Structures are given as structure tokens and as C-alpha cells.
């Protein structure tokens, strides 16, 4: 399978390493032609304000929204922000592909970044996973059809709808392939 990874900015190579370990082809997406060749898409961590400016500048908004309506997309941290419906303080609206309200940098600055155990529901099994939270956002509200799939203490840190999976933490920074594998095998 060809997994596209949005490579405008951020830790896209980290996602690429995980996808390659799982035995899939990686396409680093910076233009429409490469997006069209992708079977699924991952939007990485990075700076969401930078992502949205470049998406606009490079005229990728409509193609990305169209992709997300028909194919599956995973987003981590800034990727989650980019895919949400309602986020304050962005230069352009997010893509609106998963009905969640998000608060950016909700835990504070880098000094408040942390690594702690999260629990995630992977196809019915709730398992422990390392949660790397870097200037992480929080999901404030989720709409109908959005399922909770992961928790850190009281906070919901992973949600999904039919074809979009998002996390507020960075599974690509942990040496653990299970979340990417879950996305690739279960979202169509």
C-alpha cells in the first residue's frame, strides 16, 4: 500500500520510518500529483499555523478535503489540529474532516511537555501505549459520530470517525508500530 505523508513541514520522516517498518511504501506529499497517488494519508506533527499557510499557498485545501471525504487520514498533534472543525487562533480554518473542537498548546509551553502512559482502544482491546505530549493540544468537544479511542488520565487523547484517526500525542516518536498498524489495517 502507498501511504502518503504530508511533508510541508514537521516530523514527516519519523512517520515515514514507522510506515516503512510496517512494510508499506512511503510518499512524501508536497503537491497534488503525489497526493493523488496515495492510498491513505498521514498529517504529521509540526506547526499547525505553518501547515495551514502552506496548504493555502500551494492550493492544497480542496484536494485534501476531497481526499479526506473518500479515503482515510491519520493526524498527530498538529495533524489533529489541521483535521479538526473548530480551533481558535489559526490563520485559516482547519480542514473540518473530523468534528472536534480543539484547544492548541493546552498543557502550556515546552516546559510542560511530558511523556506518560496512555490507554488506547485498538479494535476492542484497551492497551497501554507511551504518550509523548509536546506542546500538545486538547480535544474540548466532539460531535456525533466521533468515537473516543484513547485516554490520558481524564483527557481524551485519541478519537476517530469512519475514516479519520487523530491523536494529541506523537506515536511516531515512540518505538512502537501498533498505532500506525491499527490505522493502516482498520481505516478504509
Amino acid at each position: 500500500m502507498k501511504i502518503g505523508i504530508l511533508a510541508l513541514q514537521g516530523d514527516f520522516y519519523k512517520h515515514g520510518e514507522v510506515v516503512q517498518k510496517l512494510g508499506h511504501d512511503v510518499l512524501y506529499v508536497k503537491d497534488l500529483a503525489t497526493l493523488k497517488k496515495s492510498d491513505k494519508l498521514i498529517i504529521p506533527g509540526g506547526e499547525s499555523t505553518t501547515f495551514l499557510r502552506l496548504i493555502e499557498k500551494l492550493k492544497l485545501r480542496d484536494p485534501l478535503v476531497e481526499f479526506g471525504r473518500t479515503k482515510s487520514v491519520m493526524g498527530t498533534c498538529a495533524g489533529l489540529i489541521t483535521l479538526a472543525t473548530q480551533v481558535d487562533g489559526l490563520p485559516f480554518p482547519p480542514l473540518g474532516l473530523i468534528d472536534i473542537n480543539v484547544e492548541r498548546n493546552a498543557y502550556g509551553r515546552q516546559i510542560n511537555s511530558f511523556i506518560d502512559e496512555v490507554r488506547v482502544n485498538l479494535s476492542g482491546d484497551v492497551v497501554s501505549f507511551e504518550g509523548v505530549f509536546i506542546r500538545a493540544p486538547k480535544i474540548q468537544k466532539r460531535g456525533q459520530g466521533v468515537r473516543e479511542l484513547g485516554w490520558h488520565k481524564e483527557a481524551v487523547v485519541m478519537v476517530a470517525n469512519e475514516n479519520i484517526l487523530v491523536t494529541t500525542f506523537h506515536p511516531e516518536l515512540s518505538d512502537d508500530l501498533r498505532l500506525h498498524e491499527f490505522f493502516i489495517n482498520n481505516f478504509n
Partner: protein
Amino acid sequence: MLDKEFLLKIGLAEMLKGGVIMDVTNPEQAKIAEDAGAVAVMALERIPADIRADGGVARMSNPKMIKEIQKMVSIPVMAKIRIGHFAEAQVLQAIGVDFIDESEVLTPADENNHVWKHDFKVPFVCGCRDLGEALRRIAEGAAMIRTKGEAGSGNIVEAVRHMRAVQSEMRKIQTLSKDEMMACAKNLGAPLELVKYVHENGKLPVPNFSAGGIATPADASLMMQLGAETNFVGSGIFKSSDPAARAKAIVLATTHFDDPDIVAQASEGLGDAMPGLEINTIPEEELLSKRGW
């Protein structure tokens, strides 16, 4: 060395990859930088070109000014300390700066020792001119390296020299046999463990960014093609005739560094770049890249 604290520090550096970090001296400039697509800003009182022109001792910026910039933008805010000045670092950590730059652009506080960066929760970035210097800083706890270039010169030649030095030394290390590793560590003045890491992985254990002299979109593309993972742009933006347009163009050229058509488009109609300096017209004692070891 990859304990969780360190992973968290490198993690933020990973998030900044493929982007542009811009020097700003007030909240208005910070906003221009964020609006142009900067991934972070470096808050300082004077940009390097002015520090160079003004002379005198350059110190950590006023915390009040840094806090105003923190309020203005949502992207990470970095700030500089003098080499070896761990008390300035403690102050920056106390006000919640996201990354500390132990920088040769400011006047060094300690000519023998750099800060022991493992003691801090906030990640550090340090400059280097070659691989030995990069590995010494990483051993002290730097979570990001930037090649120094010559800050405030508007001249890319030193940035190229330093990036090529690092990349070419890393390629050489990969060809060494086990019994040559210790002599290599001795010659570089770098810890054996890190020399072995480079031998096995062909890269630094932390992200490697470029700084010091980037003034045009093509400069940004050049440094990315030479192996930089992100560009710091200091005086190059706010010493040019149209900072907002130039900032956007450098962001675009950094993302699409491998597409000359886009770099060409980005280079059009930007007005004047900052005036540059011939490196050999700068007196030896005024070269910023010679500070630190």
C-alpha cells in the same frame, strides 16, 4: 543517552524540521514572522547585523520583551544566552522559553566552559563549525545543533563551509573500521560513544539546522540541499526592504527546496536583500563564529 527527558527535548526539535526560525526584536516582528509561516521565533533585542554594528557587550534579552512576544504568537519562542552563562539560562527557563540558544552572537560569559545543558528541562540549541564541536555540545546536552555560519553578515559562505565540514566528516566516519574509532574521537575532541553513533547511523543523534548568513530563498534551498533540516534566518528578513514578503518566500523555498521552479517563483519581486559583508573585510576578532569551541 536517549532517556525520556532527552527524547522530549529532541521531540520539539523534530517538530520544527523543514521550517524557518526567524529572529525578531519586538511583538510586531514576531507577528509578521508567524503570519509568514515561521515555525518558531528567536526573541532578541538586536538582530546580529545591529549587534555587529553597535559593538559593546551583547547579553540575554530583557525578560519583559520576551514575555510580550510569547503573548503575541502561538508558535514556540526561543531566546539566546551568552556562552557559559547558566544563570541567564535559568532565567529563560523560569519564564518558559521553549528553546534556549547558547549563542556566539552574544558576548561569551565563559571562555572555557559551555553550559551543562542536561541540568535543564528546557531544550538547548548550540552552534558548531565542525563535527567535533557539534558532538561536544551534544555530549553537554544540546538537543539541536545549528551550524554557525557568520551571523549578521548576509553572506552564506561560512554557513556552507560549516555544513559541508559536518557532513563530510560524518561521511568519513562511516568508512572507518572499529580500531580507527578511538583515534578519530581523539582528533575530533569528541566522545567515543558519539563517534560510534555517527559511524552506525550516518547522522547526528539530534536534528541539525543551519544558521548565519541566509538572505534569499535560494540560500535557504542551498542549505537544505547541503543537509540542513531547518533554517534559522536572522538579519536576512528584517534587514531587507520587504520583510513580510521575504519571510514568506524563504518559508516556501525551505519546504520546496528541491523544486527549482518554486524557488524561482519565490525569488521574484522581493525588493532588496540585506546588504552583505565580505567575510575577509571583517576583522578576525569580530568574527562571531570563532566564539565558543
